[in-house]
């Protein structure tokens, strides 16, 4: 098999790890990291499979998509961070204030 | 332009527009509000008169508006519709006059009269509905517009009563909706047609049709206060007297009863309903209601409560008449739709007068009221006697025809039910009459705040309406066999239903 599949599996793994961290951690900064890891996982799947029959110049469309995705991710991260800081300033803790169980992501 | 298509919508608008304008009127514009109310009511009356004349001439008034791809909003003025429309129009005018006098100084009159007009609009729509969907639309509209009237006083009791009212009526409306949609999926049409449109259905569907019938009747029975669906009616007594009058005599309960008539005659068709053996159970339900209502009425000391239970009992005469297979019973039921309305509204007007003038709410407080308020009490007595079916009153006519119909339909037990009910009516009305006329006046009335001036025992706005309706009770009884009486009209309808005879 080509390395492509291997990287793609790694991507799937990253997505899962990130999702788990997102659900498991309460600290918002960790949730933000988790989201970013999930994103990288998706990008990895997208790029890896683009080279799966090892062409020298792989399909550029996924690459363009990834660059778009990276920029969107950084934008989202910036917004998330400032929200986190503001919430911390309000509550003194960088976690979501406890609510009823079904409200807890 | 073709006026025949415009008349039915105009009749509806004649109360809708004033209502909407009244909403935005500031509270203190009493004059303008009164003018709007009365002009609306009078205009409606004129339009209805025009339609009555036209229909008697064989004109065909119908308006259609596409609501869904293949279902339309239909307003049609057939004889049956006009029976109810006329009743509503006349009584609305009287009730408006009465309400203007009754709510002289009370707050939120704009809101009250606004919803009052919308409520009548809904009733008229129910009457003119040309298919089951249209009927459903206005039926629900009626629920929504009467709710604010029930809770109008804004007390905790009023809020509770409103809740009960909604629980009953909305649940009923839901069943009605279910039945209607189901019927539509089976037949693809909902158009009211004389003699019904279901008799062509093949036997495979008959079971579903029976279930649908039950759904529809239960849904309508809530408003018609069929036992055991009547619970909301006595509670709704917290509303101001004009509202009770309207609720009981015209709008709400009649909408239910009228719906039952429509379903039996113009959806199923009376023969087909008979073939499915749906009429006898309906008759039984009605009979039970009649007896039960009268029995409960016996034990009420609160005047309005006693009248309420009497309503429960009396309205079912209509359902009973419908359930008696054969033209005679039908005529009895239909004519009672009108007669009960006239008599019952008289009684509520009078009850309102006692409360408003002397602060009397309980029967035990009514001793000698007749001497203090002779005219009111006279009207009350006439209506009460009518309810019992005393000769020369409208009540006598409808009861006579019902009894005839029962014998014609070979249902002797119904005759017994009717007699028992008459006895019970006497049992709960005569004591009141006795108290008012023959017992001595007490030293002081519970809360007298309208002084008597010479012959005028109370405000004339309150006095006029009950006198008129009481007179109507007598007229409808005495001149029953003239061409313009409700009875004659009921006969016309029945001819069309049974013999498809068109004038």
């Amino acid at each position: 098999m080509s390395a492509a599949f291997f990287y793609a599996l790694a991507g799937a793994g990253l997505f899962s790890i990130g999702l788990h961290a997102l659900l498991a951690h309460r600290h918002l900064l960790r949730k933000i990291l988790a989201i970013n890891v999930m994103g990288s996982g998706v990008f990895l799947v997208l790029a890896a499979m683009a080279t799966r029959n090892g062409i020298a110049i792989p399909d550029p469309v996924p690459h363009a998509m990834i660059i778009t995705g990276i920029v969107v991710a950084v934008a989202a991260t910036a917004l998330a961070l400032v929200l986190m800081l503001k919430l911390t300033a309000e509550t003194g803790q960088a976690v979501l204030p406890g609510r009823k169980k079904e409200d807890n992501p | 332009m073709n006026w025949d298509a415009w008349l039915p919508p105009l009749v509806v608008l004649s109360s809708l527009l004033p209502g909407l304008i009244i909403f935005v009127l500031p509270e203190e514009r009493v004059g303008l509000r009164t003018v709007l109310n009365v002009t609306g009511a009078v205009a409606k009356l004129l339009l209805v008169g025009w339609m009555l004349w036209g229909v008697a001439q064989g004109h065909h008034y119908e308006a259609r508006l596409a609501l869904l791809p293949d279902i339309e909003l239909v307003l049609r003025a057939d004889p049956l519709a006009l029976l109810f429309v006329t009743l509503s129009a006349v009584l609305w005018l009287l009730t408006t006059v009465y309400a203007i006098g009754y709510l002289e100084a009370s707050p939120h009159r704009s809101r009250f009269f606004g919803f009052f007009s919308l409520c009548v609009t809904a009733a008229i729509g129910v009457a003119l509905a040309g298919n089951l969907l249209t009927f459903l639309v206005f039926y629900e509209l009626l629920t929504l517009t009467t709710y604010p009237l029930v809770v109008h006083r804004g007390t905790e009791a009023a809020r509770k009563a409103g809740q009960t009212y909604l629980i009953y009526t909305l649940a009923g409306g839901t069943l009605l909706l279910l039945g209607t949609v189901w019927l539509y999926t089976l037949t693809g049409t909902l158009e009211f047609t004389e003699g019904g449109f279901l008799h062509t259905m093949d036997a495979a569907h008959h079971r579903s049709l029976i279930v649908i019938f039950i759904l529809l009747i239960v849904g309508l029975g809530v408003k018609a206060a069929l036992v055991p669906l009547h619970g909301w009616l006595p509670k709704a007594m917290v509303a101001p007297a004009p509202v009770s009058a309207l609720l009981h005599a015209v709008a709400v309960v009649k909408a239910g009863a009228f719906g039952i008539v429509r379903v039996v005659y113009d959806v199923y068709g009376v023969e087909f309903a008979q073939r499915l053996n749906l009429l006898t159970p309906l008759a039984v339900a009605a009979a039970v209601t009649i007896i039960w209502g009268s029995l409960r009425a016996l034990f009420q000391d609160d005047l309005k409560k006693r009248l309420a239970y009497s309503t429960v009992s009396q309205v079912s005469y209509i359902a009973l008449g419908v359930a008696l297979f054969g033209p005679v019973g039908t005529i009895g039921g239909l004519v009672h739709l009108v007669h009960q309305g006239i008599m019952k509204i008289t009684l509520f007007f009078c009850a309102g007068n006692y409360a408003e003038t002397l602060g009397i709410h309980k029967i035990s407080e009514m001793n000698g009221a007749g001497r203090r308020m002779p005219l009111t009490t006279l009207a009350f007595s006439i209506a009460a006697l009518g309810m019992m079916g005393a000769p020369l009153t409208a009540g006598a006519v409808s009861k006579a025809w019902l009894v005839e119909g029962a014998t014609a339909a070979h249902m002797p037990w119904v005759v017994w039910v009717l007699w028992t009910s008459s006895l019970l009516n006497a049992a709960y009305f005569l004591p009141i009459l006795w108290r008012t006329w023959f017992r001595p006046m007490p030293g002081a009335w519970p809360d007298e705040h309208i002084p008597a001036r010479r012959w005028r025992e109370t405000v004339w706005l309150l006095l006029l309406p009950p006198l008129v309706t009481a007179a109507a009770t007598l007229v409808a009884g005495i001149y029953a066999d003239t061409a313009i009486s409700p009875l004659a009209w009921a006969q016309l309808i029945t001819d069309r239903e049974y013999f498809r005879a068109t004038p």
Partner: protein
Amino acid sequence: MDIPWAVMLIVLPLAAGLMAFVWPRVAQTLVLCCSLAIALAVAGLALQLWHHGVFHHALGGWEAPLGIGLYADGLSLVLLTATALVGMGVSVYASAYFTLDDAHHFWPIWLFLLAALNALFLSADLFNLYVTLELMGLAAVALTALSGGRDALAGAVRYLFATLSGSLAYLLGVALLYHAFGSVDMATLAGRMTPVPAAWAALGLMSAGLLLKTALFPLHFWLPPAHASAPSPVSAVLSALVIKASFYILLRLWIMLFGPFAGDGVAALLGGMGTAAIVWGSVQALRQTRLKLLVAYSTVAQIGYLFLAFPLAAAAWNAAAVLVLSHALAKSAMFLAAGNLLHFGGHDRIADLDRVVQRLPLSAFAFALAGVSLMGLPPSGGFIGKWLLLEAALAQGRWDLAAVMLLGGLLAAAYVFKVLGHAFTQAAVTHEPTAVPARMEWAALLLACSAILLGFTATPLLSLLEIGAPFGGSGP
């Protein structure tokens, strides 16, 4: 060449947003003009579709699959209409609602949100849909947090994580589809779909992501806090439009790509979740003591209705579309009215609404009319949708679904009248009321009236829906 209305729908709000960002002073006038222009453009687009059928526009002149396509049919049109109407109402309302400083922040983001919605409803390209989703999501989150304060911020953060993870799940699905079938253009994919594992995984991922964004039970945890704590005009938009956008994508995907092979099992599952949503959401709404939370939970319940259409399939898509539009109008009206009561009384405790019927009649009336539509009582758009849905259910003998619809209607009545009943009471006035600008009252009332009027325009609406047969399996 005829005017590219659809393109204007995207370009106008973006341009206006940039200007509002650079020159905050002119923002308000700009927004009002822009929302009016959007409405006109939608009308123009409607005429265009009516005369020439579906609208297709190859962006950059590159046909799919290489390029991105804009596409508009009856379904897109319905959602664009909802956006235009609610957009106008909310713009007018917001012009009186916000303080100057907040307004300067609100207007550009609001315009970008409008642009994102329009772009989303016009896109025929799965990856482009991802970009629009993110644009919409970030704008929505920013607006939720606008008012600041503990609850609003917490709601916004929770919402942000929900929407981001949803988008990523969706994007992973897109990646799989692209690598399995070599395109992200919906129509192209529709021709190539085969039930390989990747397709199933994509179905799972994309559905999960979009359901999370649509807040279908049990993925609704983020909605009530966000919608209840956001500024009222924002709550209105979130409930009326934003969650509908992800539903719209889901509907398209299901009809064009996944429905054909996913079969009844998945549909039944969605239907079940819808049922649960109706019951749970309504009961929760009934239990609330705060007005805005009640309205938010009512949204959770109303979303459920949309998913009852899946098990009924082709027969019920029309109903779903009508419900989307009527709920958009009614719910936005309801949130705006609730905002007025909140603004007026300084609190939104249902128990002491202080005779609002007398003191704030227009808003109370707006709330009532919106409620009528939500209950599905005639005459209203809600009634039409409910009728169609019920008809489909009974025609297929799905009594369970019919029962759920009717029960949901009754529960809705219960929580609407829970509010209105208190509105009539004679409770003593417990506070110093603040006047409510007329604009805010009328915006709510007009939206509510349009929800009612929708009940009389069903026939033209349904024939518009037929354009391009969005439910006939064809489409972008």
